């Protein structure tokens, strides 16, 4: 077990260095001219004739690639990700400001995604080939094939444009005003949690109303996935000998499923949980863009459309680091759950 963890930890720096290499080679592919645009904050800087060459030299864009890489890596390690033209501030600050919005969404979405998906999968698996199973499978097949932005647009169309229940964005103007007032303490920078801590339930309800659309979108699409895995693993487990033994002992169906089958059926779900969290991260880019939620995902998409290179690359680096850490945690916890992994 310890050997396994140590091996995983030893690979970690290699992976991280590899990621910086890929991201740097993308910077390098831009070439000095396009990169220069990311350094210049006002067009006046380019007024004089030899300004471009001078500036390229000033920012070291004509130096050998290796020198540039280590300079860039040094800056990254010191927490300097460059200047974001769209946020009008350093990239690291812009990213730090936006993470709470994304984290809040992920925290609220993860509970319905996992609990709902597992529950549906178990119901579907235990009612194999009955009408209930077919119904759940058809709904999940459609969810499996539905692009997240199309579903998000449909949710907006129904719940915002037609019914007027769940608006896009983050907060209403009234709540934003309360958040800016002096009495409001920002504990976590997440409106739903801060509002409880500040004992202000109108803000909570407002913030939650804005969250329902994104949560619904993420949940529906992920239920399809979690359900498929739980269902097939449940079917597999129900065929096992020890389940037959449990039934032969005369245990009730509830006990067989809840005490004997479920725990083993959930092992594959844990394996895919890491990959799921990762795709969930990518999904927030789209969901935040559709619902206009000012998080890291929308920031990345905006930076990409407005060619704000330092912002995109900085966000990519943050997304990748989160991904690597999540995978590490999942792998280690999987080794805890399934002894066969740590022995091999």
């Amino acid at each position, binding site marked *: 077990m310890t050997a396994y963890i140590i091996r995983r930890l030893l*690979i970690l720096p*290699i*992976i991280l260095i*590899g*990621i910086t*290499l*890929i*991201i740097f080679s*993308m910077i390098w*592919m*831009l070439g000095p001219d396009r990169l220069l645009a990311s350094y210049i904050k006002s067009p006046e800087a380019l007024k004089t004739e030899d300004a471009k060459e001078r500036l390229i030299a000033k920012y070291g864009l004509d130096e050998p690639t290796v020198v540039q890489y280590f300079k860039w890596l040094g800056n990254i390690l010191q927490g300097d990700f460059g200047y974001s033209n769209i946020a009008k501030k350093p990239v690291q600050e812009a990213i730090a400001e936006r993470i709470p919005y994304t984290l809040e969404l992920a925290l609220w979405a993860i509970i319905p995604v996992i609990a709902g998906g597992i529950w549906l999968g178990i119901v579907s698996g235990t009612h194999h080939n009955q009408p209930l199973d077919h119904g759940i499978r058809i709904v999940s*097949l*459609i969810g*499996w*094939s*539905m*692009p*997240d*932005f*199309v579903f998000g*647009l*449909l949710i*907006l*169309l129904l719940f*915002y*444009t*037609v019914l007027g229940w769940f608006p*896009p964005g983050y907060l209403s103007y009234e709540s934003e005003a309360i958040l800016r007032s002096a009495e409001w303490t920002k504990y976590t920078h997440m409106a739903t949690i801060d509002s409880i801590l500040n004992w202000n339930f109108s803000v909570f309800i407002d913030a939650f109303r804005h969250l329902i659309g994104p949560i619904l979108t993420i949940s529906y699409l992920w239920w399809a996935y979690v359900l498929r895995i739980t269902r*097939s693993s449940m079917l597999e487990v129900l065929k096992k000998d020890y389940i037959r033994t449990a039934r032969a002992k005369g245990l009730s169906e509830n006990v067989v499923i809840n005490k004997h089958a479920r725990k083993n059926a959930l092992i594959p779900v844990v394996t895919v949980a890491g990959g799921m969290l*990762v*795709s969930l*991260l*990518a*999904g927030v*880019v*789209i969901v935040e*863009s559709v619902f*206009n939620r000012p998080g890291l995902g929308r920031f*990345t*998409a905006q930076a*990409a*459309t407005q*060619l704000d*290179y330092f912002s*995109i*690359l900085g*966000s*990519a680096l943050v*997304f*990748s680091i989160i*991904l*690597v850490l999540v*995978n590490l945690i999942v792998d280690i916890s999987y080794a805890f759950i399934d002894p066969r992994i740590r022995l091999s």
Partner: protein
Amino acid sequence: MSEQRTEFKRMMRRYFKSPTNVLGTVLLIFFIIIAILAPVICPPQPGRDPFQIPMATWNAAPVAPSADHPFGIIGGRDIFYGVIWGTRSAFKIGLVVSLISALIGVIVGSISSYFGGWVDEILMRITDIFMSIPFLVAAMIMTTILGKGLGNVMIALIIFGWMRVARLIRGNILQAKSEQYVLAAKALGIADWKIIVKHILPNTIFPVIVQVSMRIGSLVITAAALSFLGVGAEPGYADWGTILSYSRNWMTELNKSWFAILYPGTAMVLFVLAWNLVGDGLRDTFDPKMK
């Protein structure tokens, strides 16, 4: 030969026994017919790129469906034309990206497992690294750097899309290495690369085919998502994601542009569903263990 044919027939019979497989195949054939007949259903203007949706009006506001424009107009573009020709774009993206990235994956996986040792170690770490950047984010940056356009989207998707197949092939070859028929071939003195190309790959290629067909749907979704976010195909390109992206300008009045979501959205869901069902069906047919 006849033995192979009966085996094939048995596979086909097993495949078409499931109603979902039949549904997927029928949907797929329907889309293939639409893609082939696109110039007949929506004749392009002579001398112009057929993938550019012709302007129906210079007014950007959405126009509800009518007899002339059965799916309506958005951004001045005829949605019906875009949906029909978008079928061709979808096939192009799905097939080109999945096949080329699978080929790269097969090559990397074969080299890795053939040489083993430090070559294997290095190639697999590179694979890990490429897998550590979220696919959508990676594709998004790559497209931004390469510039807009469907061709660049496809290149970006290929660069970050070969890793799964590489791992799959590597694992399969390592497993096959210790099997009887490979040991027999080795004992006969056949060269290693010949064993891989002639004996191992044909036996491990089915899982790859299954994975390719299962990936096509999600690739089309990712490409459309890039277009929707504004970093994919150029505006006016006959691509479902591009048409959907026009709705972003009408977010507060989606009830006036519902047709610009409904029609390309339905086409996409059905297309992806078709590939997912076919891929699932192939998997169950060729590898019942994985069911």
